[in-house]
């Protein structure tokens, strides 16, 4: 049975742009939380998310209904993110700009009203943070996260539990 996403992609393929709106609504959280750990910069992740959906629109004729819709979109998102990083790396090497974000945290806007996520960004390890965001914000299931991160399911659930424990303790303090 086709999922809602595959139906929406098919509508887009049939030149119904409302299909794009639906595709966005069904996947935007997942795409953003998937891209953010790759680029580690909120603003850049936002730009890549935008580019991703524009490419989804441009490339929809190449989408096959037999394909898993979300994987197809995530592949576009990942390639877009990696292309952008390569481009930036090249520019940085010319500019001698070696500034990097500290490991384990993303560059987030200061005015973002998300205290728990910001706390997670400060105290969790990169993997824990990624798992927490994919699960709680991106709405991925544990087994999907295991596939995305190429980790055993048990490791994902264990790290997720550890991350929640850390957050609970930090909040209590």
């Amino acid at each position: 049975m086709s999922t809602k996403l595959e139906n929406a992609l098919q509508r887009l393929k049939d030149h119904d742009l409302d299909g794009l709106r639906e595709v966005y609504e069904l996947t935007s959280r997942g795409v953003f939380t998937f891209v953010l750990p790759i680029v580690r910069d909120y603003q850049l992740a936002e730009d890549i998310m935008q580019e991703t959906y524009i490419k989804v629109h441009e490339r929809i004729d190449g989408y096959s209904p037999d394909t898993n819709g979300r994987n197809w979109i995530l592949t576009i998102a990942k390639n877009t993110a990696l292309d952008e990083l390569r481009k930036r790396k090249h520019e940085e090497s010319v500019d001698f700009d070696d500034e990097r974000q500290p490991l384990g945290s993303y560059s987030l806007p200061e005015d973002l009203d998300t205290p728990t996520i910001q706390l997670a960004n400060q105290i969790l390890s990169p993997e824990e943070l990624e798992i927490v965001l994919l699960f709680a914000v991106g709405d991925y299931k544990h087994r999907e996260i295991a596939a995305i991160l190429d980790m055993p399911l048990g490791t994902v659930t264990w790290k997720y539990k550890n991350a929640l424990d850390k957050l609970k303790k930090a909040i209590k303090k």
Partner: protein
Amino acid sequence: MNIKRKLQKEASTFVPNVLDKVLDRVGYMPTPKPSFWNLKKLSLAGVGAALILVGAVVIPYYKNVALVANAETQVEISIMPASTYNATGTIAEEDIPVFAYRTDKNFKTKKLAEDGTNAVYAKNANAKIILAGIGPENTVEKPAEQVTLSIIDKAALSGFIEISEVGNFVTITTSGDNLANRTKLEERIYDTVMEYFRARAIYGVLKINGNNQVDFSGYDETDDDVDEYEDDYSSHCHEHKDDDDNRGQSWGDDYDEWVDQHDDHGGHHGNGHSNNRDSEDND
């Protein structure tokens, strides 16, 4: 509020919305509705064809052919409480509250009878207790997913969905000639109910059992005795008011894993609810 719910609550603020920018860049313009006055541009033959078409639609209408009858969707809801699911022995049919209602093409609930004040048929005593909590009059011409949620919410308040127990199964059976309508309605109900379960961390799973005949047999349009169950509803609520005191203490990953394991919306299978536990286990 537990951490996961805090994170989920922050998710909508955290994830930026770039939809307008995307639509702007791909040149999205909503399709304008065709104007009736475009008829002026049609040739005489075109106008003739349009009139024939109008006649084809209007004449059967006046002949009392129910043009929208096919848009009706019937829905049955059965609620398997966790303790019933987990109990040994045969499950008595009356332990499982069962409801049925009909919707119009806009997925609004229809009155059961022309002169009635109720849109939901409560099939057994337990269902009537729950319906008394909602108030039958509050079920008429309401969005189907809202009525479904009211039923489930009142069932939870009065202990028929046991919040802290594993094994609450709500089965939705739909029937109707219009497959697209039915599917759309199933998706709406599924999203609404699962969001409710997840938001309250209830060990509950909604199963969609599409394309099975909804049974209104036994429904008597004059049967309007739900009000008699108001006291029963209150006493059930009183008995179960502390049921969720332990919420948040014991669940975490296991809750999500459990829901994932039983989250079988895609599987339209089975033949309505069953009082045979083996068939539930197979699900």
